[in-house]
């Protein structure tokens, strides 16, 4: 391609040089679908003699008698050489470089031909990620990759998303994978310090992504060394293509509301609440006078019946607009894009807007030197309510605030009197009076130069930057709510992460034998990275008695003024190599040596490696006659990599910290025991897989088995407190994950006008805690970490139902389910009660294309986990928290001897600790969700061509439209983070959108 311009010049010159001894060769240049390729260059190899094809792809060229080979090339096609021989008419079918790309998979520090892969790599294309109603790309991954679990905890737009690839491999570290965007290992996750949730990836527009590769095994991961253990997600952004400038415009608008509701968990109406409270007071033995007095205090007769939930939830609107332009010539290509995304949450006080811009330029400076530049910027404004047990959480108030309290006074103004709200907060008023804002901006960009030292040897140097800024403001007004006690308060936090990476690689491709039967490619590289966090916090209180002055500057009393930094750095060398024998056998290896500031002096450097092998059975001679098998590939890998998320930036050092101040003079105190041997957590993945395609790819199956042992886990080892410390972090502990992944694609029908694609994926993972410090259990809230059982195992007192005779709550008195008791049993009665992680999950996708219509649907399924109703004791407790509202389920309470029910007798103030943690509040998390359903229509090309439009697609899409759950008592959405514990978060939305995509 780079030669095109030169060639064209040469062609002009060549005309004068045509010698007498020539003959004419005619021909046609087409693409792989036999469409003509105009303007293709046709040159006699080794000369400047040439021509170009015309609009029909035809060409005619006079060639010297000595000419043997023609070189045909065109923009966006792989150039091809054709031997002339004695032929006078030649048809050349060019292969599109785009199509070529599909055979190539992006992996760590480069790309590989699919047939060369020895590892487990799943890929997603732009079309699978574009225009979805999700605030960040990690949310779009749910159900798309076998073995990748993507779980939301909150429906807040911009909320963090938990991703687990092939199980959890760390107890104290993060399970989130390493994200590489255009070669830069970026900071991801929730970087906010005031918000309940946020997501650094929410500043990245999914529409700017060209492809995503998920690296799942040692062969693909280990090149990322000490950060690879949780898996690696490699994102490549869109690049420009030469030729006529192409424009694209996409828009989608729609509405969302709560995806899952359960009528059993509807808050009671005023009458229902007063009735059951009366019953509870009587059951508590109150005198009639007291009953009436208490009920009156709770609103009896005040005529109010206010549904807080109805006033907190809402239909959220949603819209996004994306434009892009792509073009250039054979030397320089560009891609420009811009986007705007606005999403309302399903509850008040919840919103996100994003504005994006993206520039990508590549230039072939000389024959040998290629330059590239990319810059992707995004700015997010997020507004998120409080979550969990905070009085300012609107979702909490919708279940806790009595229906006899109203958000408004009779005159229509806000009710701000704490006493008439039962001491809770009027979150409907606060959503207007208080402020909780996050402004998050990211710049991700890089410049690189790539130099061809030899035809088969390439040097590349890239400098990348990942810059994130978060500005957070919180204001609590002085009149009502969290700010009232301090006469108003405001926070202003500034957080910045500046992360730079300099990567240098040298790539070699070498045929070992002359014919190319045995080839070799290798890469060596050096990478330096530093991430610097900067944190500034300030707070003031004592505000003027108004709600319009909302910044700390207006507070009379500054209470926090602090700033600090936190940094980590990496210096790494790496190498990888693969040997290919006739495309039948491929053996690969990788090695990385990571040095990091996080590691202790005695373990400053870690070595990580992998080996992998592939046998492309279909390329064997004995398979030539097995026509029905298109592809048969066996592959396996093993290696060592690590995770360092459980190590704080300065954990390895023994430290004295400052802040133990006395009389406002500085004081110091020992702060960290340190460990001169502290190091990364080790992970050893083994993978074996088979890829089979039969009947011309009509049926394709990928099946994989993996096992990975994660050892040297960083755990807190309790110390004798006489040492002055409670615990020290040590590399001790082992976990194991083992599982199966299946991916089956079937094309049952494929005709000219009708195509039906089915894609099914399945993943099963078994997690086991193998070794803990001293073999001792580690208590972890409602979970236990115990040798021999999976991580995230619920450990609770076991609910034994309601005694039909008395209405008392019953639990099993011990952990062998021997006897029942109505006395809330001790800690020794706790039992293993299921796991927060599903046994298996995956999705079923159907796509039906009929002429210009496309119907597609994705069903996501999740089986075998339990979900804990964290706050259930309050709204289902049998009278506990009597001054808070209850849900409809309590109406099933026991009322008289002989009643068989699962809700105990309702007693004002509570019935024998029924509200305390037990398996009553644990529900099955099995669900199937219609994650996506879409009907699209491609406008006919003939119609569009008149308007100069190359393609236009109109669609209607539903997201999370239906959710089937197995447990009829499941209180909230089954998706509650990887801990499977509900926390009164913004409800996860179901969304209906319409979209339009136009290219011209």
């Amino acid at each position, binding site marked *: 391609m780079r030669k095109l311009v030169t060639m064209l010049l040469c062609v002009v010159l060549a005309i004068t040089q045509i010698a007498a001894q020539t003959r004419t060769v005619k021909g046609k240049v087409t693409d792989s679908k036999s469409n003509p390729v105009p303007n293709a260059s046709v040159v006699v190899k080794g000369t400047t003699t040439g021509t170009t094809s015309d609009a029909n792809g035809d060409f005619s060229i006079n060639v010297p008698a000595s000419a043997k080979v023609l070189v045909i090339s065109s923009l966006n096609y792989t150039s091809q050489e054709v031997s002339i021989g004695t032929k006078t008419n030649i048809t050349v079918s060019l292969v599109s470089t785009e199509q070529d790309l599909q055979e190539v998979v992006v992996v760590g520090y480069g790309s590989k031909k699919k047939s060369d892969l020895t590892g487990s790599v799943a890929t997603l294309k732009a079309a699978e990620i574009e225009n979805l109603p999700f605030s960040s790309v990690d949310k779009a991954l749910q159900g798309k990759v076998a073995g990748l679990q993507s779980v939301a905890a909150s429906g807040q737009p911009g909320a963090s998303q938990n991703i687990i690839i092939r199980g959890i491999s760390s107890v104290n570290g993060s399970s989130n994978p390493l994200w590489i965007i255009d070669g830069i290992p970026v900071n991801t996750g929730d970087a906010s310090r005031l918000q309940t949730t946020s997501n650094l990836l929410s500043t990245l527009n999914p529409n700017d992504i060209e492809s995503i590769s998920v690296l799942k095994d040692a062969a693909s991961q280990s090149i990322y060394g000490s950060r690879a253990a949780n898996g690696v997600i490699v994102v490549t952004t869109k690049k420009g293509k030469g030729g006529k400038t192409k424009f694209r415009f996409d828009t989608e608008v729609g509405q969302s509301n709560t995806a899952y509701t359960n009528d059993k968990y509807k808050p009671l109406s005023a009458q229902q609440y007063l009735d059951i409270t009366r019953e509870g007071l009587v059951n508590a033995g109150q005198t009639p006078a007291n009953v009436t007095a208490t009920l009156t205090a709770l609103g009896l007769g005040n005529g109010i019946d206010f549904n807080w939930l109805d006033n907190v939830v809402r239909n959220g609107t949603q819209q996004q607009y994306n434009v892009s332009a792509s073009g250039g010539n054979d030397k320089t290509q560009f891609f420009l894009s811009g986007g705007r995304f606005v999403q309302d949450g399903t509850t008040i006080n919840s919103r996100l807007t994003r504005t994006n811009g993206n520039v990508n330029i590549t230039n072939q400076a000389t024959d040998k030197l290629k330059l590239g530049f990319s810059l992707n910027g995004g700015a997010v404004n997020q507004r998120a309510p409080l979550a969990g047990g905070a009085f300012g959480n609107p979702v909490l108030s919708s279940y806790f605030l009595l229906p006899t309290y109203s958000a408004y006074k009779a005159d229509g103004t806000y009710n701000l009197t704490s006493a008439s709200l039962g001491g809770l907060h009027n979150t409907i008023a606060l959503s207007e009076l208080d402020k909780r804002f996050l402004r998050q901006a990211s710049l991700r960009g890089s410049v690189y130069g790539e130099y061809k030292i030899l035809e088969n040897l390439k040097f590349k140097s890239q400098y990348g930057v990942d810059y994130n800024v978060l500005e957070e403001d919180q204001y609590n007004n002085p009149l009502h709510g969290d700010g009232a006690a301090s006469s108003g308060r405001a926070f202003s936090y500034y957080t910045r992460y500046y992360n730079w990476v300099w990567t240098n690689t040298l790539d070699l491709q070498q045929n070992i034998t002359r014919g190319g039967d045995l080839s070799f490619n290798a890469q060596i590289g050096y990478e330096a990275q530093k991430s610097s966090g900067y944190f500034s916090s300030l707070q003031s209180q004592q505000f003027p008695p108004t709600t319009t002055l909302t910044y700390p500057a207006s507070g009379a009393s500054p209470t926090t003024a602090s700033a600090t930094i936190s940094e980590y750095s*990496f210096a790494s060398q790496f190498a990888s190599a693969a040997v290919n024998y006739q495309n039948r056998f491929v053996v690969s290896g990788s090695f990385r040596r990571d040095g990091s500031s996080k590691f202790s002096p005695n373990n400053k450097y870690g070595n990580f490696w992998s080996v992998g092998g592939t046998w492309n059975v279909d390329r064997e001679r004995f398979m030539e006659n097995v026509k029905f098998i298109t592809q048969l590939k066996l592959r396996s890998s093993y290696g060592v990599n690590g995770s360092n998320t459980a190590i704080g930036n300065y954990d390895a050092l023994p430290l*004295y910290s400052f802040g133990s101040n*006395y009389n406002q003079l500085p*004081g110091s*105190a020992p702060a960290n025991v340190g460990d001169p041997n502290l190091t990364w957590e080790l992970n050893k993945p083994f993978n074996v897989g088979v890829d089979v395609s039969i009947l011309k790819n009509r049926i394709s199956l990928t099946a994989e088995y993996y096992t990975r042992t994660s050892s040297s886990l960083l755990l807190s080892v309790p110390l004798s*407190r*006489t040492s*002055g410390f409670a615990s020290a972090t040590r590399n001790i502990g082992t976990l194991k994950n083992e599982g199966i992944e299946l991916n089956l694609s079937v094309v049952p029908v494929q005709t000219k006008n009708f195509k039906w694609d089915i894609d099914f994926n399945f993943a099963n993972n078994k997690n086991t805690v193998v070794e803990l410090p001293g073999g001792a259990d580690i208590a972890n809230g409602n979970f236990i970490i115990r040798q021999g059982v999976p991580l995230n195992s619920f450990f609770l007192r076991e609910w034994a139902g309601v005694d039909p005779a008395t209405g008392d709550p019953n639990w099993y008195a011990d952990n062998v389910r021997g006897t029942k008791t109505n006395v809330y049993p001790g800690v020794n009665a706790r039992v293993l009660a299921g796991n927060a992680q599903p046994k298996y999950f995956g999705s079923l996708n159907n796509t039906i294309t009929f002429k210009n219509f496309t119907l597609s649907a994705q069903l996501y399924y999740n089986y075998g986990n339990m979900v804990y109703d964290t706050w259930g004791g309050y709204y289902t407790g049998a009278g506990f928290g009597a001054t808070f509202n209850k849900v409809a389920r309590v109406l099933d309470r026991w009322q008289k001897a002989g009643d068989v029910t699962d809700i105990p007798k309702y007693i004002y103030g509570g019935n024998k600790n029924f509200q305390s943690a037990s398996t009553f509040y644990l529900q099955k998390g099995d669900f199937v969700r219609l994650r996506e359903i879409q009907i699209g229509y491609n406008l006919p090309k003939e119609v569009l061509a008149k308007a100069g439009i190359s393609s236009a697609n109109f669609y209607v899409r539903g997201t999370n439209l239906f959710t089937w759950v197995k447990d009829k008592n499941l209180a909230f959405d089954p998706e509650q983070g990887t801990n499977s514990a509900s926390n009164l978060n913004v409800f996860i939305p179901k969304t209906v959108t319409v979209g339009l995509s136009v290219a011209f």
Partner: protein
Amino acid sequence: MLLVIVLLVTASSCKKTFIELNSPTSLTPEQALGTEADLQVALRGAYAGLRGVDFYGRSMPIWGDIMADNAYQSALNTNRYTFFNDYSDTKGATAGDGNVSGLWASAYSVILRANNIINTTVASNANVDQYRGEAYAIRALAYFALVRHFAKPYSDDPAALGVPIVTTYNPDLKPARNKVSEVYTLMVDDLNKAYTLMTKYTNSSQFSKYAAKALQAKVYLNMGDKTNAKTAALDVINNGGFTSLTAASHASYWSNSVVTTSKLETLFEVSSDAVANLAFDALSYLYSQAGNYGDLLCADDLYASFEATDVRKALYPTGVRAGLAAAFVNKYPVIQGDLSDTKVLRLSEMYLIAAEASLPGNEADALTYVNYITSRRGATAIASTGAQLFEDIITERRKELAFEGDRFHDMQRLKRNIVRSTNYPATSRTVPYTVFRRLFPIPQVEVDANPQIKTQQNAGY
């Protein structure tokens, strides 16, 4: 290509420091304790440790009264100290109790801070000696808190299990409990060193020579060593240069929350200033009725024991809480800004120790010293003799040192049953000396982590 490889290799090798990053907010122990000035900063850290919520910041002064007969929990409460208000053989705190393990952890954390100063290699000079002296006194105070709560009184059995003695830093140490007598020997020894090393008086919130001596007087009193207790108390009275609290200065003394240098009354207090304080967890919040807490009230019998003319009575204004008439405690009134400090050692107590230690044998001295106090409070002079005089001195201690964390320890060293007013729950109005919960359990977290102490849990737990 060779050139590039050479480049890569050199790039990687010359960047060793690139992956050595230091904490921006912390120093290594060597850096933090290298100079005389560093020791002063570390010493403040040790004092700040005393302010821990389950140490002198709140729990220590509260336990000393709520577990005795002075402070009780109102029916309207925030559920703090419930297990110490209502405790008996069948009720009360368990080995998992957060406050109890908080005391254990805070005390040993302060001991580590003190040890690091005591064991410094910085060359000796007047300042370094002063800092080390203060560290010795702080360490003695921490052991005094531990041994009195976790072990039998010295007066009962000096050979009983005390608490582990740790004087050097070793995170992997799993020590067994030392004997009570060994812990007392360490305290006396530390306080002798503190007395010798210190030459300066800084302010009311730091140990001085005579504050250390005052603590030693208290230690001796707990050992039943009346001779040494009296000698030490008189050394403070006669040579300390502190002035006595009078009836006229009484009210302003208790309302002041600022650290002083006047040498009036306070020998040592733990400071809570306007910034470094426990906020809602501060001692003053539990007593003050001005905030949202005010859980703890003054027992009716104690309130009744003050004569109308006694200026101390003014510290207990009356009112209604939870629908009942109650006497509030106004010894720690400041809950905003520079919070009320925790008084640990006062000159008045030296007179009370001198009085008690004069008995039996020297009733004249005893009367002189105890009436030094009554005469400065507007109370009627004590004139009794014999056993009644001893009893009157103990009662005077109750009245003078009420809500300063002292009463329970008097009941312990005197091996007395605690008889409480009807303000307390009926289940624990009488707490015999034999009730095992009068000693705290060794915290479960310690038992779990320390195999040597596993078999040394206090009886009953």
